[in-house]
């Protein structure tokens, strides 16, 4: 792919795109770690929300 071995291509170009898109979806959906747990049991219990 573009003169690169497939493993190099994946880690150089595909992985960063996955990381960017994945974290963007994570942010847009608002599903930050344990949001539901926090809403249900209170922010004091943040430790259990991971």
């Amino acid at each position, binding site marked *: 792919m573009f*003169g690169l*071995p497939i493993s190099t291509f994946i880690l*150089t170009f595909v992985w960063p795109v996955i990381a960017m898109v994945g974290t*963007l979806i994570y942010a847009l959906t608002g599903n*930050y770690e344990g949001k539901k747990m926090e809403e249900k049991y209170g922010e004091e*219990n943040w*430790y259990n929300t991971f």
Partner: protein
Amino acid sequence: MQNIEMWVVVIAYLAAIVIIGFIINRREKNVGMDDYYVSQRSLPPIVIAFSLVATSQSGMVFLGAPGTCYTAGYAQMVWTCMVGGVLGIMLCNLVLGKPMRYLGERYNSITLTDLLGDIYDTKKLQLVCVITLLIVSTFYCVVQWSSIGNLFYALLGVNYKWGVVIGLLVVAVYSALGGNKSSTVVATVQLFIAMLAVLYMFFLALYVGGGLTSINEGIQKIDPNMLKLTNENYSIWKAFGFLIIYGVGMIGQPAMATKFFSLKNSKMLGAALALGVTSYCFTILNPFAAWVMRIRIEGGELAALTSVDTVIPRFVAVFANPYIGGLLIAGTLSAIMSTSAALLITVSSTFTNDLCAKMLHKDLSGKKGMFLAQIVTLAAALISGLIALDPPDTVWFIGNAAWGAFAAVFTPALVLGLRWRRATKQGAIASMWTGLVLIFGLRALTYSGLWTWPFSIDMSACVLLATFVIHILVSLATPEQEKEWMPRKKAEVLAMYNHTR
């Protein structure tokens, strides 16, 4: 003076960031150390994310990394930046973000020393924290001033010492004036400039090199190993070591970890994560310019480099439009300045808050604390700057070991302290002192030539893993510690919730 167009852009950039410092100083009503060091815990996610990334990069992204990739190829870029760095930004957000924001507000923590003292409920960690933060950060700062001096010399023909003085004055003024807020807001602007510069350089490299495939074919002709992720010069262990030290080790960098104290709201961590990862990915594309240079140099079209670290300055001088060249210099200065500013705030907060207020019990409330904070920030800049004018060998020894030292001392204490109920203060004390002694002891042995590190895995990565093991073993061997701040286990919360319904 080599190029008037470049100077115009660089001077405009330096003036702009000093003006931002003045504006923040005028607008903010800082009345104490809390305001000065953690910005009233009111910063938005974009500022946290961009300043986190800007602080992580220093001169490495524009000078060091392209230089090492010039000879090592894709393996270096992938393991240190694409995977290691991106993973580090993710881990910082996911592991530290929420608990640090929560506990920072709960205990009114300003520094890592404060936080570690609170989560382990002991003052015995203060000494190792203060020693590490004060000495290592100061020398790390010296390395940054030195990079600025070299950059001014290489790109604009300015005498090294004058370069150091210019960089130091600008950073000292905006950091001392506006404290953490000024340093983080300016870092945000700086990262934005750095991103623009890198993207321009990436597309310019593709244009000059005739496209990605053509660049890769050129690299293959020089050395096919440069396209591989591992080869005889770059073993899987070496890759693993870089992944550990740049990925996991990023968690323990104090100038970065303390950014989460200033976040407005923990619900904004998702946005901070996405912005951090995206901006990081856009600022690590410099090696393509280095490879284009290598192809041209090997092909006899350009003269050989005096040092691989000058590959990007040479690329800018040969191929970039002078105004854009000025932007690239500004981008490089941005990367270095943001790190130095964050380090100055770390040194200042450690001296004022940890040493004077907490260890020596001085009353530094209100304006008095604020005034001392500003004076110490300026003094830290002055002292580190004076050392940078003519740095002795020891400075390079300590400064270059700084990342590994912070990683080994703070990463296990933070990760296990915040995330593992069974972690004890004895475990933290043992791991932190062991990390500090091992890093500098082993480096001193190899630096003096008395011993050669026999493994291909990075030494700092091994020490980091060892400190994790020591923390876990000592914690398990000592009585469990009550952590009233750590909420109950999930099952207990559910039981409590069901009981109260």
